């Protein structure tokens, strides 16, 4: 029998330590698929962030580096400039990218650095146990906002695609989700674009992915995927925020 769908060789055989229903694994699988389908596994260097996906350096079947919290875009820049023939992707969570690493992501985007950013937005600090993230929704409970995010005290969430779309630099900015098969397919397309852009030396591409964190949301995986639809997407609308490839046509 022919295998239609199965674990791609772009992933190692290591069993992933994410919680049941976590969206990281879905995005990992998509990237693992693309490393093979785009024939880039052997020239790719991936960046694993600090956070739940720190273990990504064990999961992606390519060269990997694990830098300080938030500095993925800077490390990516160093690798890409030192080895322009390598494909470089930085995998980052919302604490990593939108809190401690805000300066690095903004400036990498402004430079239109020819790298691919995979940004997992699950509105919470996962690994440290569910604290308020820069993306935590107004009213949403976290372990450091137990009454819910109070915009008077903790301010508003950061909408990263919209923020970066204010810059002239970035080539491709898109927000997708992985809570339904249809959204997963759209994420596959977006990530493919983000890697192809780099292969074609187009510049900075970021895919922001709304993803489930059932453990820290205090929900079942099934409740989580519905919450992404019903609540998260209202605050973080899906879609392309920049696509220079289309503008150029």
């Amino acid at each position, binding site marked *: 029998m022919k295998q239609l769908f199965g674990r791609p060789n772009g992933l190692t055989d290591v069993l992933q330590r994410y919680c049941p229903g976590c969206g990281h694994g879905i995005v990992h699988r998509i990237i693992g698929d693309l490393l093979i389908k785009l024939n880039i596994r052997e020239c790719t260097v991936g960046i694993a962030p600090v956070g739940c996906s720190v273990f990504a350096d064990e999961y992606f079947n390519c060269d990997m580096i694990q830098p300080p919290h938030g500095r993925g875009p800077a490390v990516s820049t*160093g690798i890409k400039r030192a*080895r322009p023939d390598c494909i470089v992707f930085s995998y980052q969570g919302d604490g990593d990218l939108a809190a401690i690493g805000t300066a*690095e992501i903004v400036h990498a985007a402004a430079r239109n650095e020819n790298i691919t950013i995979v940004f997992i937005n699950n509105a919470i600090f996962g690994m440290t146990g569910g604290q308020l993230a820069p993306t935590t929704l107004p009213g949403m409970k976290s372990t450091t906002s137990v009454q819910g995010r109070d915009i008077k005290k903790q301010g508003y969430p950061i909408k990263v695609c919209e923020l970066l779309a204010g810059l002239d630099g970035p080539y491709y900015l898109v927000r997708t989700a992985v809570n339904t098969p249809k959204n997963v397919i759209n994420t596959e397309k977006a990530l493919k674009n983000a890697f192809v852009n780099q292969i074609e030396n187009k510049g900075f591409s970021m895919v922001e992915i709304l993803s489930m964190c059932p453990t820290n949301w205090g929900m079942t995986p099934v409740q989580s995927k519905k919450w992404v639809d019903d609540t998260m997407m209202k605050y973080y609308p899906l879609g392309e925020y920049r696509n220079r490839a289309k503008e150029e046509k």
Partner: protein
Amino acid sequence: MSEKKLMYGNHAIVEGVIAAGCRFFAGYPITPQNEIPEFMSIRMNEIGGVFIQTESEIAAINMLFGAAAAGKRAMTSSSSPGISLMQEGISYIAGADIPVLVVNVIRGGPGLGNIAPAQSDYYQATKGGGHGDYFTITLAPNSAQELYEFPKLAFELAEKYRNPALILADGLLGQMMEPVEFTYKPIDPDTLSEPSYALSGCKGRDRRVVRSYDLKPGKLEEMNWQRLKKYQKIQETEQRFEATDCEDADLIIIAYGTCARVCDAAIRMARSDGHKVGLLRPITLWPFPNNVLAGMSKTVRNFLVVEMNMGQMIDDVKLATECRSKIHFHGRPGGGVPTPPEIYEKIQAILGGAR
């Protein structure tokens, strides 16, 4: 004879870095080292190297982490507050056993301090600097010539031991002009072989991972013990120093960098008045030249440590001499630079007046 050129110390570093085959610089402006990125931007452009003016020193050190992990010689320069910002990155780089070169043109501190020359980052440079157990190889040049020569030495040591290397200069060394002799043939970076850890894409080999963490029980401890062996080897084999007039000395001054130049003038004043004074100039601050000092302390009763700080290297001198000798100190913190007469005065006070 090789070519000689009158140069700023900060420009000499740039030529030294390029001659060492480095084609990657990332840095952020800060006085008194701005001549380095300015001149570097011109030179890298000429030779097709990478120059990035970063959004912060944090970004700079992490770009270095990336470039060096990719197997390329990479350097940054900054001054004290900027080096403080880099410490997290240096700790990660040390923990991942990756060689990089960081130049610190020290200024007066703490805080914003001032832009005058200082040596107040000695502890930071020689005791690790950031979090965790680690050391960085630290070189202390005292002339434009050494600023040209030490980048090559620093890269070689960094790569030999897979460890970050620092060059400690100060505003005075960086901004003075001296003749520099281009003593060695520039290295073509293409002739440097790819290191065993280099991230370059896993074609034809197993994939590589560069990281500083390990959560398996006991594994991180094991990694740290391994690194200690490396540090011990560096301490055994890489102590560098210059000893001037030490053979018959009743008093030996210990000073590095700018201070060593000032002290050199002071010992000449003292010698002309009949005082037997020598100068020991540590060239590696880590590893500190313990062995030579331990030997000297068996016969020399008085040592005078001169630093442009409140007294930091003096701790290492006391440890090396194991309390066998009397250790005196003359320091000028906050951007103060000692003069030969004030050091000579101190010499006279120690030795009990002119003979």
